[in-house]
Structure formats: C-alpha cells, structure tokens
C-alpha cells in the first residue's frame, strides 16, 4: 500500500496508528473533520497491538485479551472515514503545522489545522557491556517477531531487566512453546519500599491482578534470579554468554539470545524537532512534553497523545487520544458536543505512579562506564563522553561536535537519554540543566531524491546559486 495523501490540507493529521492515534483519528473523523492518519508500519496497532489485523497467532489466549481489544479500535478507525496511510514516514513537522511525509519512495508536504502526535514509545536504552553484540535484542524486538511472524526463541535464551512488559513477553513466549532458560530481574530491591506509598492505587488498578497472575505463570516454568545488580554480554562476533551479579555473587550463563528490557520512554524526535517544549521527568527518567489536560503542547495546534505524552500504557493512550481529539473538534466547531473523558483517563492512569517507582531502572543500568558503548551508531563509549566533558563539553550538542554522538542514522534515539544522564552525573548537574540534542528534520532518513523533488521557488534558487 503506497497511496499518497489525497489532499494537501486536512483539518486534523494524526501521526501514528497505535492506541492513541487510532482512537483520536476515529473520533475526529466521526465529527466530520477531514482526518489523515499516517503510520510507519505495515498495519495498524503500533507496538502494543502490532500486527493486530495480520498476526499468524490466532488463539485468543496466547496473546491475551488486552492485545485483542485493539482489533475493535482498529476497525472503528478504519470505518470512521479517516484517510489512513501505512508505511508512511513523517520526517518533518514544524510550527507552521507543515508535515513532510514519505510514502513509497516519494515525499510530499501537507498542511494541517491541528496535528496530533501519537508516535508512542520506544524501549529505554539498556547500555550494558556487550549490548551491541549480535544476539542481544530488546524484549520488544522479540515481541514484535512473536506477534508479526509467530517466531519465538528456540536457542539458549536469557531475559534480563524489569517491568511489566518483561513478564508479559515471557508468558507469551512460553505459551507459544518458546524457550527461556533464565530470567534476570534487575528491579532494585529498594524500589519495593519506595513504591509502597503508591501501592494502594495500584492494587485497585486493573494491572494488579493480571500482572500477578502472569508472574506466577512464568515463575512456575523458568528459573528467575532477582536482585541482579550487574549485567554484561560477551562473545566473539556474537553473543556467547551473559554474566551477572546477584547478592554479590558473579555467575556466567551460556546464551545465544539475550533479551533486554527496562521499560519504555517517549519517542521525542518528531515533537522536539517541531520545537515542542519538553522537560526532564524525574519519576520516569526521560523527557516528557509540557502539555495541558488535552495534550496540547507549547506549539499552537500541536497536541501529543499516548505514551509520547509520558508513559501511561495502552488504556491511557486510548483516552489521551480521545482527549486530544476532543480538543481538536472543539477548536474547529465550538458548538460540537464532545463528552468529557477525563474520568476515564484518570481511571486508566491509576496505578502508574506505583509502576514508575517500582520499575525505575537502577543507575548502573542507565549510566554506563568505561568501554561500554553509549552511541551505537558512531560507536562512542562512556569513557569517550567523559573525556569530552573534561575538555569542555557542557551538554549533548557540544559533545556531538566533538564525538559525533547522535549524528548516525538513529539520530540519538538510542544514546540521547544515556548521554544526558551521563553528562549530568559527570558535571554534577541535573538532566534538565544538561538538556538534549537539538533535533532537526529529517527525523527519519529519507532519500536525497525525495528532498530534491519537493517544491522549489526562485527565492530559494537565488539563495543557493550564487555564481
């Protein structure tokens, strides 16, 4: 499917067809606003409902009811009248609400009266020694293969990290007959105590019962080591073993696959490149946009919904999508009757603080040392970053000039948080004071020929061709 946008102007452009984007697009289209939903993947669902229309795993029980709840929302969006384009990469968004989108090897600019960014989350970088070795992947990667292709590990496999997704993935792999040899739980013991004040809200949230059942299911089948304080992958050209320390004892496990996970963080590239103000979130340890209750950002006309607004999970994402859609509808038609979704949103967000505190990753898994690679693209280590601080780099942008961190194709997605926290620690500053990379379009690589085919004018030619 490589349909290009039918129009040059839309009332609402929604970017990302995960829970938030699907819900938002369905609602704005339902109010007869011209709505375009752009998504990078081959089908709707985002990460959490990936391959919802195409998964070869058909059994309801295997993937769980939370997964299948996505089918209904995806169908509603499809039937809503919104124009939906998949395999469309949005590579530029600016404060004029002009959107650069690449579809099928060609690019175009479209204009929107409102933009709802619903680009979701990515997994938090997990920079341990050896994390670039073939055979080390994120848990999300394994889950993607499981949902899209029905593939599960059949080699010696270690799952390491923490957070609800880790246990969900383990349960799903086991249900599909896959292999997990060992789970290394890195949840810091102190977090259990720190999370207690938030426990009541969590115990009364929908997560609680499901989460507990899943952990029980996994523990019955796989050896689990808790309180892991150190983790390293090693091997020659590919993963051969995983070394860990728990309770002061060092152990080495043979492994061909190591799946890492320590939570998810907002995808900030598009919003930051558009100039949306973000602040460091001390609880979630990531950048989150500054938003009002409807997701409206510091840039007029741009709202952010879903996990991109701060991690809240799939249910919250749906309601945030509807809240942002409601705001867009109100802006277009002040007399439209839009119901207030804040009670539903509050309910869906309940228990989040408990999870945030309990699964706040330990410092040693966020801030690496020595020869551990920080920037995977440019192969820059923690020591390289500290050397740069020593000669005067105060933040990520000067570091970039010195060492090219963040200049590779991933554009800082897998080093940005690490760089900020590492520099903050080295300089005795807060991450907020250190700041982040200044991001620029294209936020995803596009072909030169695509840029070349975009509209030109005499003024631009004069600015370039100067004899």
């Amino acid at each position: 499917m490589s349909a290009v946008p039918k129009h040059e102007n839309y009332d609402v452009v929604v970017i990302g067809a995960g829970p938030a984007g699907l819900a938002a697009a369905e609602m704005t289209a339902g109010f007869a606003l011209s709505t375009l939903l752009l998504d990078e993947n081959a089908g709707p669902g985002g990460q959490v409902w990936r391959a919802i229309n195409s998964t070869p795993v058909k059994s309801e029980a295997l993937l769980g009811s939370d997964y299948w709840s996505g089918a209904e929302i995806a169908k509603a969006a499809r039937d809503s009248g919104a124009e939906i384009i998949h395999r469309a990469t949005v590579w530029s968004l600016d404060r004029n609400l002009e959107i650069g989108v690449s579809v099928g090897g060609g690019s175009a600019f479209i204009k929107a009266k409102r933009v709802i960014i619903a680009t979701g989350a990515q997994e938090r970088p997990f920079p341990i020694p050896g994390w670039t070795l073939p055979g080390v992947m994120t848990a999300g990667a394994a889950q993607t293969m499981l949902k899209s292709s029905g593939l599960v590990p059949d080699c010696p496999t270690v799952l390491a990290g923490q957070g609800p997704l880790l246990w969900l993935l383990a349960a799903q792999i086991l249900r599909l007959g896959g292999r997990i040899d060992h789970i290394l739980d890195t949840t810091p013991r102190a977090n259990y105590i720190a999370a207690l004040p938030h426990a009541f809200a969590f115990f009364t949230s929908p997560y609680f019962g499901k989460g507990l059942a899943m952990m029980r299911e996994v523990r019955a089948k796989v050896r689990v080591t808790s309180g892991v304080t150190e983790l390293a992958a090693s091997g020659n050209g590919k993963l051969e073993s995983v070394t860990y320390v728990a309770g002061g004892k060092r152990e080495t496990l043979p492994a061909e696959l190591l799946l890492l996970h320590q939570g998810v963080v907002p995808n900030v590239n598009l919003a930051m490149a558009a100039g949306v103000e973000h602040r460091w979130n001390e609880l979630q340890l990531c950048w989150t946009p500054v938003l009002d209750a409807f997701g409206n950002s510091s840039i007029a006309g741009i709202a952010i919904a879903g996990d991109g607004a701060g991690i809240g999970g799939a249910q919250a994402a749906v309601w945030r999508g509807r809240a942002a859609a409601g705001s867009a509808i109100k802006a277009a038609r002040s007399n439209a009757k839009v119901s207030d979704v804040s009670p539903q949103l509050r309910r869906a967000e309940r228990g989040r603080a408990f999870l945030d505190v309990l699964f706040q990753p330990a410092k040693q898994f966020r801030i690496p040392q020595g020869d551990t690679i920080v920037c995977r693209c440019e192969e820059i280590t923690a020591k390289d970053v500290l050397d740069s601080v020593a000669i005067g780099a105060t933040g990520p942008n000067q570091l970039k000039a010195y060492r090219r961190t963040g200049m590779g194709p991933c554009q800082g997605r897998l080093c940005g948080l690490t760089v900020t926290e590492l520099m903050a620690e080295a300089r005795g500053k807060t991450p907020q004071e250190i700041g982040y990379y200044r991001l620029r379009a294209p936020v995803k690589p596009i072909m030169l020929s695509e840029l070349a085919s975009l509209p030109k004018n005499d003024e631009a030619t004069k600015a370039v061709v100067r004899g």
Partner: protein
Amino acid sequence: MTIHVEGHPITAREGDTVSAALLASGLDVRRATAVSGAKRLPYCMMGVCFDCLVTIDGVGNRQGCLVPVAEGMQIDIQKGKREIGK
C-alpha cells in the same frame, strides 16, 4: 514465498518483515557497521535502532524491520558503508 539472500533462496511467510525472515532463516545475516566494521544484528525491530540495515533489491541501507517481504526479493547483507550506486 521465496526470497533470496546473497543469492540463496530462503522461505519467508507473507507478513514477515525482511529482518524477521532473515533472522528466521538460520543463515549468518550479520551486517558490518559503517564505522568499525563490527558485526551487528537487528536490536529493536521497531524502526528505532538502524541495526537492521540491509540492501534490498539493489538499494542499500534500508531498514529491514520496516519492509515486508515480497516474492522474489533480492537481499544482500550490508557490509560497511553504503556502496556507490547501491
């Protein structure tokens, strides 16, 4: 369906991404980085990490995790920097 990896035919399932098909093939599909030539395999499978870069039908440095397989596709493993004309 059948796709070709460095000229070898492998079987892929419709709906697979190129990266998933490569990983499932059992072949050595490690790419070499453009910086040091280090061996890598896909890390995130969701379009973020760019460690799945691969040459597809003669076009280099494509994100294999975002491209669905198609019958007869010719895949080459990315070896370092993008080649001229690929």
